[in-house]
């Protein structure tokens, strides 16, 4: 395979930049609900994606046919696309130079997934499902979902990068649905990482079952939160989602160039001095692990905000050239037939000096946001996230669970209000995908963080 890709690169016409990728993704999914196994599937998706830069224009083509003739035909299609686009390009694309990178990189975990059988997976999922349903008479529904990506990538480019990357990324979801007197309330606990079967030691299924069941039942009777601006203490998972969704996308330099809220903010104070935000592919146990991106650029640790001051965007080679900086190794393609886009990896706040318990002291009334649900954020940094697990804080103590909580606001305003970050740093946002035309596995987190945010609930704080 590498030889063929190298031939494509070596025989390219003059003035052509080539990135050639092979990506095989094997996916395993096992799902059970309400006491029954619903699916066990295996998918094998492999192919070649070739991106060509010619006369300032990108062309891309892909194929699932992995033979020499088809690969060369794919190069020709990509080249033709670039040639057709070139005359219409007002701003010619130029690329920042890179130091080529070579090598083999692996993150398959301490207990590789490949050592475990489909049978084992089926038993695990069905056992968890049964336990959820039997946990309490109020539990009438369940959903257990195990998904694994097993990736093998080869990335080569005409600058000389030549890498092979192996990783596996499992996700496990445990949902309990509680019913009582016509009310229905679900709660889902989930975990994702880069690695192997040790995910079930790090996140024991019995603990996930307990969290899902107990929270779903408590939510049946939980009152609404008091709507309004409140002091909030955010668990690392919540810190991760705010960092990723509400800030992270605004600093992806394609969005910056479109006019996101981060435009023109390099060197400016955008958050409190307690906030240092990083995007990095270094953590090999996290879902956003990335040693080399899909353009063949080494993925560097990027400090986005340092002690409140914006330092860097996330760059492709093109935007790095445009802004006169180095690329950050942030171009990622989900599968072989996707074109690389600027994406995040593991996005987090650096740990602070406080102990976690200190963050709750002196809060007369506020909310403890433990677990985020879905949400969205704008290029203006306006965001909205549901927080299915939220507790009142009263006089420094964590109180009762409240329901239907959504946190909204402008992410930069929230970060400016941060007055404490704890030292209990962890990444815990690895399940699921980030969406931006195509999915991406990412992770996020930080230390528990205290700030001010707009919380939805009953109007007027009733």
């Amino acid at each position: 395979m590498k030889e063929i890709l190298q031939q494509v690169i070596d025989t390219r016409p003059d003035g052509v930049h080539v990135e050639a990728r092979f990506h095989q993704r094997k996916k395993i999914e096992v799902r059970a609900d309400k006491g029954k196994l619903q699916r066990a599937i295996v998918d094998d998706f492999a192919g070649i994606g070739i991106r060509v830069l010619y006369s300032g224009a990108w062309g891309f083509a892909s194929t699932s046919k992995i033979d020499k003739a088809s690969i060369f035909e794919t190069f020709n299609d990509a080249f033709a696309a670039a040639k057709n686009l070139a005359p219409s390009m007002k701003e010619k694309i130029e690329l920042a130079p890179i130091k080529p990178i070579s090598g083999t990189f692996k993150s398959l975990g301490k207990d590789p997934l490949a050592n475990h059988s489909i049978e084992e997976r089926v038993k695990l999922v069905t056992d968890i499902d049964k336990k959820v349903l039997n946990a309490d008479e109020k539990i009438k529904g369940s959903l257990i979902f195990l998904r694994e990506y097993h990736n093998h990538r080869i990335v080569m480019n005409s600058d000389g990068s030549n890498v092979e990357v192996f990783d596996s990324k499992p996700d496990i979801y445990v949902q309990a649905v509680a019913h009582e007197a016509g009310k229905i309330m679900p709660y889902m606990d989930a975990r994702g990482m880069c690695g192997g079967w040790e995910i079930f030691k790090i996140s024991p299924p019995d603990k996930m079952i307990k969290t899902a069941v107990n929270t779903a039942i408590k939510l049946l009777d939980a009152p609404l939160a008091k709507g309004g601006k409140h002091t909030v203490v955010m668990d690392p998972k919540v810190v991760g989602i705010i960092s990723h969704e509400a800030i992270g996308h605004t600093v992806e330099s394609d969005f910056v160039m479109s006019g996101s809220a981060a435009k023109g903010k390099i060197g400016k104070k955008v958050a409190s001095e307690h906030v240092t935000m990083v995007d990095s592919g270094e953590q090999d146990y996290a879902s956003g692990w990335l040693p080399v991106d899909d353009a063949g650029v080494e993925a560097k640790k990027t400090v986005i905000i340092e002690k409140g001051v914006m330092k860097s965007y996330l760059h492709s080679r093109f935007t790095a050239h445009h802004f006169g900086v180095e690329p950050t190794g942030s171009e990622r393609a989900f599968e072989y037939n996707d074109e690389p886009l600027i994406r995040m990896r593991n996005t987090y706040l650096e740990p602070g000096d406080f102990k976690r318990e200190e963050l709750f002291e002196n809060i007369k009334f506020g909310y403890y946001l433990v677990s985020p649900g879905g949400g969205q954020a704008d290029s203006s940094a306006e965001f909205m996230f549901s927080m299915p697990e939220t507790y009142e804080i009263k006089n420094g103590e964590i109180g009762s669970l409240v329901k239907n909580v959504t946190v909204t606001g402008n992410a930069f305003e929230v970060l400016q209000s941060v007055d404490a970050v704890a030292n209990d740093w962890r990444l815990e946002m690895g399940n699921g995908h980030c969406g931006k035309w195509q999915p991406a596995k990412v992770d996020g987190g930080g230390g528990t963080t205290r700030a001010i945010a707009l919380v939805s609930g009953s109007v007027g704080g009733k």
Partner: protein
Amino acid sequence: MMVNDLLSIVDPFLDKALKMGVDEIEFYLEKQKINTAFIESTKLKSATANNMEGIGIRVLKNGSMGFSSINSFKKEKIKICLQKAMTIAKLIPSQENYFLPDKKQIIKTSNIYDENIVNFKVENCIDIADEILKKCYLIDSRINIESGIICSIEIETGVLSSKNICISEEKTGFMIELGGMAVEGEKIGSWDEEYNTVVKVNDIDIDFIVEEFSRKLLQNLETVKIKPFVGKAIISPEAMRSLFSMVIDAAKASNIQSNASFLKDKIGENIANEKLTIIDDGLKSNSFASSSFDREGFPRQKCTIIENGIFRNALHNSYTANKENTDSTGHASGDYRTIPEISPTNIEIKSGTFSLEEMIAETKAGVLFNRISASPDPISGDFAAVLKGGRLIENGEIKNTLREITAVGNFFECLKTIRGISKENKSLNYYTSWKIPYILLDDINYIS
């Protein structure tokens, strides 16, 4: 090679599998050709040509189902894929009611194929992208197209099963999708989008898409904050789609049977105001979302989901239908890489008798929803939605565009208190199509 020809490559594997002791087997084949021009940061970004093909194999043995898929039609790869599916079927527990659908007569849908798309090339997509950029700039230089996709799509699908189903079909589509915001100095308006997908490239109305997109973005630029209040909501088709997706999800038999739907045990019951009727028509002519058969080769059809407020029919595939000893409704969905799920095709929420003008006129205090950013709970119906580009209505007049306003409520309860449905409607076409009016609701909590 056409999918029709590929069915003949796959046919010998069907016999082989049956001889090896498989009870039932289904092959789902798919080929796609997609040419795309991308816009990014209000400039042309790239052009792509993607060809994809693959096969998904479902195998049943003693009621146990194994599934495997691969993106290749090479015989040795199909053989490996089949072996994996058979291995899985042997390992997993038997599931009651798991058997493939019988062959039924198919009614062919019409107008889902355009020869012009087949001849469409990447450079044609580039030309249209360029045209869109020029038109947006002429309307207003503050318009930023953060991202845009212009693509031509050809899809061929085929189903071959041991239940004598052997069928294939081709369809085409042309899609324009624009997302972005208006920017004026330091001011950044809320992100918004406009899109459409048609079968025939000549049916796309580029001017309408560009004008609607521009109007939404410019409207979002100047915003005001207000104090919390309780008032009416006039929900736009775009916002309706986000909220009514919950209702459609609740109507999927898979969710009902998993106790994850508020519609459980509610067939024949009144669950909404009598003004509300929702149908799904898989055979709708001239729609990209239509096809003659579903993911399992079962005939597409028209299905009344809610009729005058009464829940009439859940959406089924063959597995969920078998559990209830009823027929599939032809809603099996998914590509070759998944087992059949359930999805709608062409949803229509029937228009009403209220005009939008009347709705606005009768609203003393309320908000005209534009787009919402929400994660509604699909099981309980609770939602807290940030309204993007919501327009304040005071004493029957539209006033300012609002910033950072959140609406809170329970959508399933709102269904019963629908105050009015508009005569006007809008088609929102993507891989599923929606034809949706405006809806007027009372008593929504707004927080700002």
